[in-house]
């Protein structure tokens, strides 16, 4: 009822605020236009032969992709990226989901301290803890290995999973668990048969977000990795940081490959997750 009455009223309100609305839409259009042009100039450049002057390169080629693939050993870099990301996702879910459960269901002395410690890695800039962490990892000879990179990436990923999962667990009625226990289920069974199926949307959401974040995480990987354990984003930075040595087009070809990977991940993520919903739930977690 209210909806049918409200709809025309809402439209009228919109019409009244017209000049403001126009300005906002113009700003949005300007932002999106520049963004599209920015992305497009990288894409066009990666396909161009020579582009000194004029609106477009002189002619087009795909040679830069083959070149970049060989020169930057992208096959290997991609496989390392995927391995690191998947292991980080698996580990952070495996450790984070039970922890999120415990935090959601129990009120114990010192809970605030634990929550604060979990919030800090999310709030501090990665460089702040990345440099001491890299120092420690170099000392124990883990820096430059896949293990070291995975360990470093776990630091922001694990608290993130816990913060996302806690509100999800809170939404599940405790009676469901009690019922399962009454029927004789043990803790392991309660988790495997009751909680995990119910939490699956949350687990998927957290996993995908960690996946996206780990692929995009530059600072920590950069500080800890060496040539054999670097992810795509670090390889891209290294190439872009030493211009002149590499052709700009080859760097852009790599950038496009990175972009394609991210876009693919975003598409998959949007299929499973409603972005505003995730954020709204994350918001509630820290304010406990």
């Amino acid at each position, binding site marked *: 009822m209210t909806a049918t009455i409200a709809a025309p009223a809402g439209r009228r309100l919109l019409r009244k605020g017209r000049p*403001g609305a126009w300005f906002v839409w113009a700003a949005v259009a300007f*932002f999106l236009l520049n963004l599209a042009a920015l992305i497009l100039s*990288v894409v066009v*450049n990666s396909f161009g032969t020579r582009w000194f002057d004029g609106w477009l390169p002189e002619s087009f080629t795909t040679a830069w992709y083959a070149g970049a693939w060989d020169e930057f050993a992208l096959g290997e870099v991609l496989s390392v990226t995927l391995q690191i990301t998947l292991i980080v996702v698996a580990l952070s879910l495996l450790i984070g989901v039970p922890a999120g459960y415990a935090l959601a269901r129990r009120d114990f002395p010192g809970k605030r301290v634990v929550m604060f410690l979990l919030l800090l890695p999310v709030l501090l*800039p990665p460089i*702040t803890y990345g440099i001491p962490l890299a120092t420690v990892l170099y000392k124990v000879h883990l820096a430059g290995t896949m293990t070291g990179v995975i360990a470093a990436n776990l630091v922001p990923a694990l608290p993130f999973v816990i913060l996302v999962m806690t509100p999800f667990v809170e939404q599940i009625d405790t009676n469901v668990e009690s019922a399962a226990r009454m029927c004789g289920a043990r803790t392991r069974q309660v988790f495997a048969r009751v909680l995990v199926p119910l939490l699956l949307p949350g687990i998927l959401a957290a996993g995908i977000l960690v996946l996206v974040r780990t692929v995009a995480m530059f*600072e920590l990987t950069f500080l800890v990795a060496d040539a054999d354990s670097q992810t795509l984003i670090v390889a891209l930075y290294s190439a872009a940081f030493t211009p002149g040595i590499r052709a700009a087009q080859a760097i852009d070809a790599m950038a496009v490959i990175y972009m394609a990977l991210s876009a693919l991940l975003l598409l998959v993520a949007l299929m499973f997750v409603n972005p505003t919903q995730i954020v709204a739930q994350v918001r509630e977690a820290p304010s406990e």
Partner: protein
Amino acid sequence: MAVEAPARPPKAPVPRRSGLRHRLAERGVDRVLFLLVPAVLVVGLLFVYPMLYGVGLSLQPKDGGGPLGNYTGFFRDSYERSTVWKTLRLAVPAALINVGASVPIAYRLRGRFRGRRLLTAALVLPVTLGTVLVADGLLRYLGPKGWFNRVLLDTGLADEPVRLIYNYWGVLFSLIITGFPFAFLLVLAYMSGIDPTLERAAATLGAGPWQRMRRIVLPLLAPGLATTFVLTFVLAFSVFPSATLVGEPAGETRVMAIAAYQAAFEKYDYSMASTIAVLMGVFELLVISVALLLRGRLYTGPATGGKGS
């Protein structure tokens, strides 16, 4: 929410032997907490220990000079000291712009209309681009031969290419491009949490659009905006790739992150690097606590209309 330990009725007859366990369970300490142990171990080992180690390291300067030698050295050296100002000069405006621009856009986008999902997705897309890619794109797009300058030259808006990269502006743009979608997403979520009937009620009482915005929406949104500011500020504060790629890493945009990185991996002075890292954390938390302190003075409560709330 009923998340308190359910009183565990099935275990009513507690044997005297397990009195301690029972009492602990009443305070929420039972075997469920074992699930927390791996996470606490990981965070302790990989975050708390390195942080404490870093603080300890920062108090043992390489060149001597007492435990606080590095800190006084940092503030005495004007080249190092200026990094604080350079970082804040980038991060604070970027965060303010991101939050400020998100409010009107999210306000227009919260209703239901055709293409809303698509537009939201387009605005959120740059989140996945990452700072490195955006920096690379800015070099192409805003460069002297890039499309942006070409448009300016061809339309006669400028006589010579405008210099927008390798300086402060390039870094600021990259921070806005990567930070805005994030801020927008958060603000949109907060905005959706405000009951539209409140505004409608105000409209029936004769409030114009501007008044509704200023008296109803903004006060309810303010705490969320403070949180958003904090989170985008954190993102902008750790600016590193864009400051080196599109900035002027030796001068105008030599931010604290660059100083810390150079100390660690170019001068191999891990003690000084830890000092700068610690100071980075301190300055960032300082700004955050000011923002959160201001937030504490704002109204926080239900943003829904209806009975008794």
